[in-house]
């Protein structure tokens, strides 16, 4: 089927269908919430000067986060991981990538803010990089764990 969405979708038809559902769910929920918000604002809040950019950003980000969380929890990302050996190898790859992500985050932050001069600025530089790397690892690890569990129930050996 021809659609500009094809650019964002994988080739595998099961994954493709699931992701399309996540996108549709996200859009549906956003629409319902917007209608509810418009109704509440009309009846009770009566806010005249709403920051439109802020509302638009919240809707866009929450939509993306919803799709992302559903994707992570669905266990479809690591579709071929079934043996313990492969699982452990993927954990190592995720760990390596997370360290790389944290490292790049640290370097780019350092380029932007400059070399830290005291303890406070050092913490400001190091902590977000560590948190970023940790977050990256956790999201990918949860996705791997869910995929592994799902695959074990589906695969022959």
């Amino acid at each position, binding site marked *: 089927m021809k659609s500009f969405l094809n650019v964002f979708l994988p080739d*595998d*038809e*099961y994954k493709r269908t699931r992701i399309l559902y996540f996108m549709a769910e996200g859009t549906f929920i956003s629409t319902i919430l917007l209608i509810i918000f418009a109704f509440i604002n009309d009846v009770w809040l009566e806010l005249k000067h709403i920051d439109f950019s802020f509302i638009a950003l919240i809707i866009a980000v929450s939509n993306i986060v919803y799709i992302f969380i559903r994707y992570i929890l669905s266990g479809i990302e690591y*579709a071929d991981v079934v043996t313990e050996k492969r699982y452990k190898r993927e954990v190592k790859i995720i760990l390596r990538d997370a360290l790389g992500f944290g490292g790049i985050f640290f370097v780019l932050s350092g380029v932007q803010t400059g070399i830290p001069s005291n303890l406070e600025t050092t913490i400001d530089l190091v902590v977000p990089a560590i948190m970023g790397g940790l977050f990256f690892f956790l999201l990918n690890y949860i996705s791997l764990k869910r995929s592994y569990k799902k*695959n074990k*129930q589906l695969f022959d050996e």
Partner: protein
Amino acid sequence: MVNKIKLARTEAGLTQEQLALRVKVTRQTIGLIEKGKYNPSLQLCIAIAKELGRTLDDLFWED
């Protein structure tokens, strides 16, 4: 949807991974189809039937 893909695949001497590679889907998708947890498109049904040397009736028709 109940199907006989797993039986036909083992009779053809193919693993899930080999069949997945041949019909260009993931191994997870083949596993889900075999368990009846995902209904494939007609296009994929035909591709699987061709790879296994069976007809659609052989694989998907319920007696």
